């Protein structure tokens, strides 16, 4: 009789288990976000999708636009593949994935051509090249083809935003060092009035061409990776102390 008094009533137990399950699901979502934005960041950890990262990251506006276009393609293609994952035959999955991605990239490309035409001209071949960007296919193959649709979309968005953040930081660094400006080229998106929104950091700055040229992208990316590793090392040291 005395043991029965200590037993937890059934409904309370169910509630706790439910809370536990909710906590688990929340932790899973947080892990997906953390992986995309920091721990497995495509730009500075996986080093996937370097083609646009190195070629187009010479201004903040270019970086942000291509990053967002890539994120959009990643989110929709991961979502679509996750929905279709049980109908895609295993041996020919890669061609099917690429077809889906290519179709979505075409949509984005036509959309950009119609609504932000000047920016479309600047980004040029790098928009269709999102199809071949390995980070898109990597997330589809490694994650979306095995997980539920909601998780797949979240993962692709987190990875895409992680890549976009790296692109924007790198673009900002290269633009500031190379041209002494920030946000130049906003007029490509918002019309000629936005040309005045460009921030000039130092009047009379001569410009440092190397930062704008491809070597600047390699040096800048190397410095960003070094900084990430340094922050991680410092955090680990603090945890041990």
């Amino acid at each position: 009789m005395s043991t029965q008094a200590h037993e937890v009533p059934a409904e309370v137990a169910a509630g706790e288990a439910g809370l536990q399950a909710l906590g688990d699901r929340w932790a899973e979502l947080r892990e997906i976000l953390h992986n995309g934005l920091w721990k497995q960041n495509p730009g500075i950890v996986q080093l996937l999708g370097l083609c646009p990262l190195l070629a187009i990251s010479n201004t903040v506006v270019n970086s942000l636009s291509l990053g967002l276009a890539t994120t959009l393609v990643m989110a929709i293609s991961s979502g679509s593949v996750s929905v279709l994952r049980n109908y895609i035959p295993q041996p020919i999955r890669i061609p099917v994935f690429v077809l889906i991605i290519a179709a979505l990239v075409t949509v984005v490309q036509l959309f950009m051509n119609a609504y932000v035409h000047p920016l479309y001209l600047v980004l040029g071949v790098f928009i269709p090249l999102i199809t071949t960007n390995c980070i898109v296919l990597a997330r589809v193959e490694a994650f979306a083809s095995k997980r539920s649709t909601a998780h797949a979309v979240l993962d692709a968005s987190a990875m895409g935003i992680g890549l976009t953040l790296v692109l924007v930081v790198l673009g900002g660094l290269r633009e500031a060092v190379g041209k002494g400006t920030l946000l130049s080229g906003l007029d490509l998106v918002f019309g000629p009035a936005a040309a005045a929104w460009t921030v000039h950091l130092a009047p009379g700055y001569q410009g440092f061409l190397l930062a704008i040229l491809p070597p600047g992208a390699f040096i800048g990316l190397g410095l960003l990776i070094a900084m990430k590793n340094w922050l991680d090392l410092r955090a680990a040291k603090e945890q041990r102390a």
Partner: protein
Amino acid sequence: MTGAPFSLGPRNSTPRVMLKVLAALVPGIVAHYWFFGPGIVVSLLLTSLAAVGFEAFVLLMRNQPVRLHLTDGSALVTAWLLALSLPTLAPWWLYVAGSFFAIVVAKHLYGGLGQNVFNPAMVGYAALIVSFPLYMTQWPAPLELAVHAPGWADAFDLVFAGQGALSPDAYTSATPLDSLKTQILAGRTVEAVLGQPIYGLLGGVGGEWVALAFLAGGAALLAMRLTTWHIPLAFLAAVALSAGALHLIDPARHAGPLFHLMTGGVMLGAFFIATDPVTASTTPLGKLVYAGGAGLLTVVIRTWGGFPDGVAFAVLLMNMCVPFIDDYTQPRVFGKTARLRRRAP
């Protein structure tokens, strides 16, 4: 690495070697001062100060013994080689930026003295010529041909305060290499161009004497056994042979071997830059391949490239090949029959 013995003894400790290299550069610097004015002293001072400052800063950041590494003189050698490759009388920040790339990016980001893949001074030069082509192509004219020969006050003014009232046309001129290239593109023949006053006797007024002074300094390095004959000889031979071959094919469009040897950075490159023990090949055969390739590339870049001189890019390209060259040119170890290879075949 080649075989033993590795020890050099106290006579050739790093600071002593660096000091001797600096001493071997002095004749070239004196000739430069004599023919082009005091600008070279200002640029040497600036690059030396900047290089030592950056070196100390990075050593502090890396928790390395500052005094030990600063007194080895390697930063000074890099600074002097950089100053001798850059145009004099350029704005002060050009020298500081070049020293930054040489010391911080090319040397310490790769791990410091002995670890760098690329020749630091040449990385500094390459970063500058890619970024600031305007300043990097304004070379002071030889004093005897300049409209206005800049003195000490002019030199400090131009470097620290900008051009002011003095127009660049008054004290600069196209270098022999640059002017030959543009005039040939304009349809003139080499013979007609080389008759002009800036070309002097062998390659260019002033420049030819500076080149000869570097040759003398290089001969001193060889006599002190600080470098072997392989790299300078292979470099100069490759430049002479490839320039000679081009000259034989079309003498109207390609200058002869003597012109190529005596202009630009060939002499400095052959004895002081390509011979950098850290970034050069280390095996005897490898040194010949490395320096020969650099000499050939120099002439190729001069003839068909976008930049007037090619020594820096040629040396950097061959620096990249050094691990590969060393791997395939290991000498036979005494007592063994097969060549020593680092990797299993």
